């Protein structure tokens, strides 16, 4: 039997005040199924940063979350402008976010570094003018969520 839970979210690109709703929902699900609090927090923060990025840079997108007994995998897919230089984007403090985003508390250039920091694996596939897919995995300790 396949014991993977699949969640799908659509992230709206035009309403910054609603950004984070998907991450909030995922956090509730993880709580309900008894995921350890530290894992829940790491997953929530990584997904939230990714969700904010989608709203700021890519006019929204879709997020698929796969929860298995071994890991939590988040696949964030957008059809935004793509990332011209991933190495630069991964540097703490480097940001291409517009100034008005900084007045909202984001655009400090910490999004991708934070996402990498809180996950066990992060892969970025990007193509200019086509979009970006970020896949993040947080491993679960053995015997959790059985």
């Amino acid at each position, binding site marked *: 039997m396949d014991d993977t839970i699949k969640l799908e979210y659509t992230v709206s690109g035009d309403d910054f005040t609603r*950004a*984070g709703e998907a991450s909030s929902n995922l956090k509730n699900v993880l709580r309900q199924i008894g995921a350890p609090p530290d894992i829940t927090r790491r997953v929530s*923060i990584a997904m939230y940063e990714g969700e904010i990025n989608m709203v700021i840079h890519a006019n929204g997108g879709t997020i698929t979350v796969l929860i298995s007994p071994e890991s939590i995998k988040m696949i964030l897919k957008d059809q935004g402008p793509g990332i011209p230089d991933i190495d630069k984007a991964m540097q703490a403090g480097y940001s291409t976010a517009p100034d008005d985003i900084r007045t*909202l*508390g984001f655009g400090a250039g910490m999004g991708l570094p934070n996402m990498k*920091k809180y996950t066990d694996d992060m892969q970025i596939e990007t193509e200019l003018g086509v979009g970006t897919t970020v896949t993040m995995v947080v491993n679960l300790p053995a015997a959790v969520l059985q």
Partner: protein
Amino acid sequence: MLYVKDIARLLDAKILYGTNMDTTEVHSVCGSDMMSDVLAYVKNQSVLLTGLCNPQTIRTAEMMDIVCLVFVRNKQPDETMIELAKQRGISVFTTYHTMFTSCGILYTAGLKGGA
């Protein structure tokens, strides 16, 4: 040991929403207007001091398991934000003190920022 109720007392703060204030311990404090800086900082039983007043402040506190959110310089969150905090069980205060003074008061009371 300090509790959430002590944060309100020390900062002479107005309690906009309080939950389990007598029993929720506070171990550390983070002060920032940049939410990504806050998200880089993970500690248990933390208070967040901020001058940023928008729904993402509450969302950030939610993701971080922040136990108490304090708006400095009398920033006033709207009803929607307070309702969001209620749903997530986060106490919300506002204080007339500035960020610097608020940090100083809590530091002097023995709270640290952590690594």
